[in-house]
């Protein structure tokens, strides 16, 4: 089983190195975007980094209070063990996070923490700041991740 995964990964890498474009899922319904190289992003504008994962594009509107309430419920159940809004805890404080990170990056970090920690320069740096405590995969759904994002927007 694992071997199969390795093969898929190797094939994916081969495709990627050949300049193949990997279609990404788009939650806002826009056209699939292409994946950008992430390695150079550490020193660049963090808001330009969309992270690695299923989310390539998010369209933001006015803050949706219903979604904020859903996000708060998910946050309290599955995130507060490591994140506080007001202060750094195991992970970073989340006040103002939507001003520091792109919405796509936030959702990808929520949905795909293992790969983000392994490959994304900002996530790698945050892991170091957390003394190597990796972000847990809480099996959040895309809908829940979107609601979490809205909750974070309300905490700027």
């Amino acid at each position: 089983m694992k071997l199969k995964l390795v093969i898929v990964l190797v094939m994916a890498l081969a495709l990627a190195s050949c300049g193949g474009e990997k279609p990404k899922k788009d939650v806002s319904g826009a056209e699939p975007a292409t994946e950008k190289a992430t390695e150079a992003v550490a020193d660049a504008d963090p808001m330009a980094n969309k992270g690695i994962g299923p989310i390539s594009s998010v369209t933001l509107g006015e803050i949706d209070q219903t979604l904020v309430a859903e996000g708060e419920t998910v946050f309290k159940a599955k995130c507060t063990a490591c994140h506080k809004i007001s202060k750094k805890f195991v992970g970073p404080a989340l006040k103002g996070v939507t001003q520091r990170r792109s919405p796509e990056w936030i959702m990808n970090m929520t949905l795909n923490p293992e790969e983000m920690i392994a490959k994304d320069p900002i996530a790698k740096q945050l892991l170091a700041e957390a003394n190597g405590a990796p972000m847990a995969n809480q099996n959040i759904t895309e809908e829940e991740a979107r609601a979490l994002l809205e909750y974070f927007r309300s905490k700027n």
Partner: protein
Amino acid sequence: MKTIFKYFITFTVVSSWLVSCGDVNSGKSSSQGALSTNAAEKVYVAPGEHDDYYAFISGGFSGQLAVYGLPSGRLFKVIPVFSVDAEKAWGFNEETKPMLNTSHGFIPWDDSHHPDISQTAGELDGRWVFINGNNTPRIAKIDLTTFETTEIIEVPNSAGNHSSSFVTENTEYVVAGTRFSVPFPQRDMPISEYKGNFKGALSFISVDPEDGRMDIKFQIMMPGFDYDLSHPGRGASHGWFFFSTYNTEEANSLLEVNASQNDKDFIAAINWKKIEEYVNNGGGKKVPANYAHNVYDEKTHTATSTMKKEVLVVDPTEVPGAVYFMPTPKSPHGCDVDPSGEYIVGSGKLAAELTVHSFSKMIKAIENEDFDGDAYGIPILSYESTLAGAVKNPGLGPLHTEFDGKGNAYTTFFISSEVVKWKLGTWEVLDRKKTFYSVGHLMIPGGNSRKPFGDYVVAMNKITKDRYLPTGPEVTQSAQLYDISGEKMELLLDFPTVGEPHYAAGIAADIVAKKSKKFFRLEENEHKHAVKSEAESKVVRNGNEVHIYMTMIRSHFAPDNIEGIQVGDKVYFHVTNLEQDYDVPHGISMIGANTSELLIMPGQTESFVWEAKQEGVWPFYCTDFCSALHQEMQGYIRVSPKGSNVPISFTLDGDPVDIE
């Protein structure tokens, strides 16, 4: 892809081995035939690859059930069933203590014997495994989505619950036949008056097709013989159940001699559909009883034990046409039905031949009233009229037979230590292979169904003298794997087992693996002491009981500093694992705890009690290596003198647990 890779890797490994060995015809390994038989290749499952079959091998006197992979023989898990288990806190935590409740009180041990996998339309469906506790009669059900025991029902009026726990072909019933007959009702009476006064209860436990809930539908009160093993009919014989007997002499002392007097004992043939119909129409008699029914709820993660007070008993003579005896030489043990349902094999432990009865001939004999007397009013069919044939000179001490679905049967011989392959219908012996040593049961995955997976047979041995490195007088128990895909059997592998490998059931891995649960959803956790976020965690005093509602996640507890506990307090830890990630359990234990650690799965809640006996500041810690910072997952409880004015307080990082 998978298979190609497996071959590729095997080829690579074997060829590198060949290269490194140089001359393959010299040295010890070639003299043992390892290379010439390619047995190693056949059991090699490359790192990261999965086995083709699950084998559920009973732990015998360990009281548990072990899960192995085939063909590798690797041990994956020991599922606690009838005995307490420190690794999983089974019988130690508050949630599972009720599972080991019986009419005799909390019984932390049993002798687990015969696992059987649930079936639909005669084929294995991979939903549940049933297994019997032999000593304090019980039947357990294990849920194969979680590989946890979720129900245990005690069986009244029984003793030595051995002829169980086999299921009918739609899992309508799991049976629990008593090996030892006992007074019915139980009472103080002279043992010498056994004959005619002791009874043998054959219990039919219904299984709800939806949730698997068990209930003793009826008990057939049979004559006081020993009911040793059983198997369900299938196909044409579906609706019948067959039980082997010994001690038809009804001896009560030195049975080795006194129960070997009769030339023939019986296989009891029970038409359970007829008895079910009789019961559904108001037949049978409700009699007082006292037995525990223990159910584990996967939403509350908690078991409850209910004492039941009556059971429905059926006198077989009141249901004409439902019960018959088929004479079978001589002290038969195994009672095995072939996949077509036509042949019923009785293994007379002291018989020179292996006796095979024919179901269709049995029906004809019943129609013709071809009887040879009766026993306590139950008709005895004439031996010749039910006989399909006999395997001549098969070996010494036949015990059990399994089938490959290709018209062949495989029988174990305890005394001559061998597995013998023979042909159904012609009764000729086709092959025989040694076992090491004194083999009991054998198992072909799907053997007790209409569709066996006829690739392998597993032989389970009672003795392994000199077969492994010695470990004192007691050496490891073991099983052996044979390839039966060809004309001749081939011994591929020995592997050590937990406890006594008494019996086993096997199933193709893909039927079970795809339904395996990964974690428990926090939203669905209905444990009455669950807290679903750190903000909800708390410490509550109630007299001299203190309840700690705690959460765990990589790599800390919340709260982790607790003060205000006093000497003499009973401290309940109710701990919820907030993880929602596959395969990330956490553990917790407390210094001086008179119990085992808790091993809590993602999304689950468990509880244990710790008694504060001495003043001081005492640590607790995570017992399951959960992350790089696992060592840091710890906390303290301050214990003050009794009557102290230190208030209850609980914090994390110096803050209240609900700080935003």
